[in-house]
């Protein structure tokens, strides 16, 4: 097999806190993996290192054969790694449509636009994510679920090879969570996109991930199929046990 993302001996600490202690992970193309773990276990730190926001203290990260350590988020985005954020990063003062137009415009400047041009491509995204009725609203005034969707929709505009989602359903009403995940997974299905998502809701994890990587204290304590990992004694104690809302 030829993995798309490989982490070798990646280390990162913030003072005395180790957020990544010798991480060795690889991710297959076109796979869906969930990263789980208690707060502070190192999941988001891992995403931040992959996207160039943080630089590992040691180790290597390679994406599609290209070394990522030392590149900034912009370069890494251009290599084909897009991300969404735990707190959606939007252009709050302009409309949903304008948000997507910015994303489409940037993609077009890099030669990624659809054949129909920026406006049509934007309309297509609005439709795919069910955002048409919010199109004219200011992004800063949207309900959280819609903000999350827009955040992911913008990340996908660049047609990435890899999509990193940081808690795509946190802060969203329980009834809406599956709807959001269905839309997101539907948008990437059949596109050959490798998905990594950080998630605290174990129902979401077991439903959408083919593989689960459990973090604790900057280390990987379990890695494998959801059924196996979620049954692991250490995972039950350190991950699920410490997340009361996750077992509901």
């Amino acid at each position: 097999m030829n993995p798309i993302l490989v982490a070798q001996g990646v280390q990162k600490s913030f003072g005395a806190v180790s957020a990544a202690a010798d991480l060795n992970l690889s991710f297959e193309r076109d796979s869906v993996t969930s990263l789980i773990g208690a707060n502070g276990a190192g999941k988001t730190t891992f995403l931040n290192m992959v996207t160039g926001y943080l630089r590992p203290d040691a180790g290597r990260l390679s994406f599609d054969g290209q070394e990522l350590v030392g590149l900034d988020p912009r370069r890494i985005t251009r290599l084909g790694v897009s991300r969404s954020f735990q707190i959606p990063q939007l252009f709050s003062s302009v409309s949903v449509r304008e948000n997507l137009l910015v994303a489409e415009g940037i993609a077009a400047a890099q030669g990624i636009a659809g054949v129909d041009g920026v406006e049509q491509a934007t309309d297509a995204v609005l439709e795919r994510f069910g955002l048409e009725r919010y199109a004219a609203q200011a992004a800063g005034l949207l309900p959280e679920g819609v903000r999350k969707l827009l955040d992911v929709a913008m990340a996908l505009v660049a047609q990435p090879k890899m999509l990193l989602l940081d808690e795509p359903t946190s802060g969203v009403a329980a009834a809406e969570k599956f709807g959001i995940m269905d839309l997101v997974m539907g948008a990437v299905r059949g596109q050959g996109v490798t998905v990594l998502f950080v998630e605290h809701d174990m129902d979401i994890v077991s439903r959408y991930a083919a593989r689960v990587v459990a973090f604790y204290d900057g280390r990987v304590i379990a890695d494998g199929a959801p059924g196996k990992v979620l049954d692991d004694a250490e995972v039950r104690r350190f991950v699920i046990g410490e997340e009361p809302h996750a077992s509901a």
Partner: protein
Amino acid sequence: MRAAAWSPLSPSAAAILPQWLVFLLALALAKGLVVLGLVLLMRTGLVSFGQGLYFGLGAYAAALLANRAGLADAALMIVAGTACAAAVAAILGLLLARYREIFFAMLSLAFSMILYGALVKSSALGSTDGFNLHAKTFAGFALAAGSERRLFYAVSVVLVFCVAWLLHRYLASHWGRLSAAIRDNELRVEYLGASVYRVVYVNYVAAGALAGMGGAFAALAVGHVDPETAYWTTSGEFVFIAILGGTGNVLAPFLSAAIFEGLRTIASQYAPNVWQMSLGLAMLAIIMFLPGGLWTLLQRRKAA
């Protein structure tokens, strides 16, 4: 459309308006150009308290071209003022495009005060008094005595509106959208794969060029340059005019600059001692009741 053709800010007005009003409006157009650049920066989320640097550079470059190089052609002087300011902005922009908020504002102010200090100390350039200049031709055509200001005003109006229209197009383009996006969230722009630095740099240089063009226009209108053009109160005046007009439209700076110059003329005649106080009160009223500037009044009327 017919009313617009006869408004004071139209070329045909130059033929019928009294001389003092032509002068006032020519100065308003010049300052409006500087503020137009400031609006571009503000749309990107930056406020410069140092546009006097480029205003002064443009004015002195135009004046020196006429006085020292003997090329007293108004068109050439405007080109020289714009080019000189753009060149300096292209160098300083490399540094300034890395800064935001108060650091950007203060650093740009510091650079403008360096120019002010240099001009004050240079006796060859007239020190604090500055020097006079006089344009003999415009694009090769001799400027007849007396009608000079009027003709020049008419041409300024056309040119300035062309520049405003270009900026309007720019703001409506992808780069304009990207500028507003940077004001909202730089992190997201970088994570979409675009360079924030590049957009800020380009906008900074464009704003510098516009301020230089405004400086050259002002020098031609007044017929005199002095270090005051680069002083921080001049830069502050530009920010004042920008806030007074608002950033909603590319014509707002010109409307606002005309009102500002008009107020100043009236106030200095009838209330010379409280003129600055009345400015302060006007600013207070704008910030409290019209945070989007005077332009929002026009928008409201359109919406009603």
